[in-house]
């Protein structure tokens, strides 16, 4: 109802009282996720993509894979970067402009989950050590913000990576006609909780996010 990040006392009390009784606004159990729908390959222009619908939260992840120089301190690893756009489309609270702390935090948290799992086999994406590696861009586009952007983004990004197809390179590092998937290792699954009163709930919806005392993420 409001554009400020606000919930009315009446709505907040309702959620707190429900939680005391072991219930949630949408009837879920404390340990249940909203319905998750994943649509990989939805953006043909991208090497990989996935639209994640988690309840009404919608996140579109796009993977673009290019070639470039590795970072000087990791000559034997591919380059991977994650960016998140909390675009004004998705919520009356999001403003346009350069990434602010929320979108930077979201990008870095999703990135860490993927990088440290490790999800991507970074060494095997090296073309010529110290000179040429694959560069993987993970771009998260939030389309509709209804709570728990972290998990929706994680699902979208990981699924997009797992369904990405890149050209096979010949000995000179030139692309051939053949395609191959990205070399994947582990599959990081993030899990976000909110503390409501004395209770811990998984996958908080928008109203639960506004009511929460604390917010956790776990990979």
């Amino acid at each position, binding site marked *: 109802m409001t*554009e400020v990040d606000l919930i009315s006392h009446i709505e907040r009390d309702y959620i707190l009282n429900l939680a005391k009784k072991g219930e949630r606004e949408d009837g879920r159990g404390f340990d249940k996720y909203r319905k998750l729908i994943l649509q990989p390959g*939805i*953006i*043909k*222009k*991208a090497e990989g*993509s996935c639209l994640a619908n988690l309840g*009404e939260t*919608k996140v*579109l992840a*796009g*993977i*673009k894979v*290019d070639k470039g120089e590795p970072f000087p301190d990791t000559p034997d690893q591919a380059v991977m970067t994650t*960016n998140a*756009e909390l*675009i*004004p*489309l*998705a*919520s*009356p609270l999001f403003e*346009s402009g*350069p*990434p602010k702390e929320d979108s930077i935090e979201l990008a870095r948290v999703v990135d860490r989950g993927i990088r440290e799992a490790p999800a991507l086999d970074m060494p095997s994406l090296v073309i010529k050590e110290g000179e040429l590696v694959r560069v993987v*861009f993970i*771009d998260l*586009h939030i*389309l*509709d*913000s*209804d709570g728990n952007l972290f998990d929706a983004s994680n699902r979208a990004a990981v699924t997009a990576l797992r369904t990405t197809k890149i050209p096979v390179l010949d000995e000179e590092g030139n692309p051939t006609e053949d395609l191959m998937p990205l070399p994947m290792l582990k599959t990081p699954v993030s899990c976000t909780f909110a503390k409501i009163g004395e209770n811990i709930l998984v996958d908080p919806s928008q109203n639960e996010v506004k009511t929460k005392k604390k917010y956790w993420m776990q990979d």
Partner: protein
Amino acid sequence: MELIKNGIRIDGRKKDELRDIKIEVGVLKRADGSAYVEWGMNKVYVAVYGPRELFPRFLRRSDKAVLQCKYNMASFSVDERKRPGPDRRSVEISKVTRGALEPVVLTENFPESVINVNIEVVQAEAGTRCAGITAASVALADAGIPMKDLVPACAVGKVSGEIILDLCKEEDNFGESDLPIAMIPRTGGISLLQMDGLMTGEELEEALNLAKKGCEIIYEKQKEALRKRYKGDDHD
């Protein structure tokens, strides 16, 4: 490259054929009004917020609402990844989009406020500004913002000397001329007219007539999409 042979274009269409267009209304929960358009390979989301309070205050107008349009392309929407954030092209398209929609939005009803139109292109293949304007009209209507009319938009152009409707990517890149046009069917007026390349006076007239036909078809799709959203069962 032969862009057109015996009246058949590179993607199999005839000169006056539109690409496949699908319009959905009310696809985003948080927005006051929203629409999603698939137009050929283009995929465009539009969200409308407002009318709502405008900050900074000095932008407010005492006689009407301010219409703000923002066109943006996702990094992964094009072949070569695009750096996030507005570039000069996006800024220009945002401005002409506002110009295309402003004549129909009854902004006098909401002085001192702002109506935000956010256009997000998640996949692009020629004609995104027309897809954006087409979707934005529908999203504005979905938000309940009073309008004189909806605004259909499409591009016409010239390839191999022939006037064609709704350019695809190759036609846009290698053709002789490209004209995106937005129309206001109720008055027959034109609210967006841009041109690249060269055309003679007669060619331009032929192009405008073809655009009008294209816009009429798109207009019907816009109306149908809006009606479909609200066709519940009738319990009479």
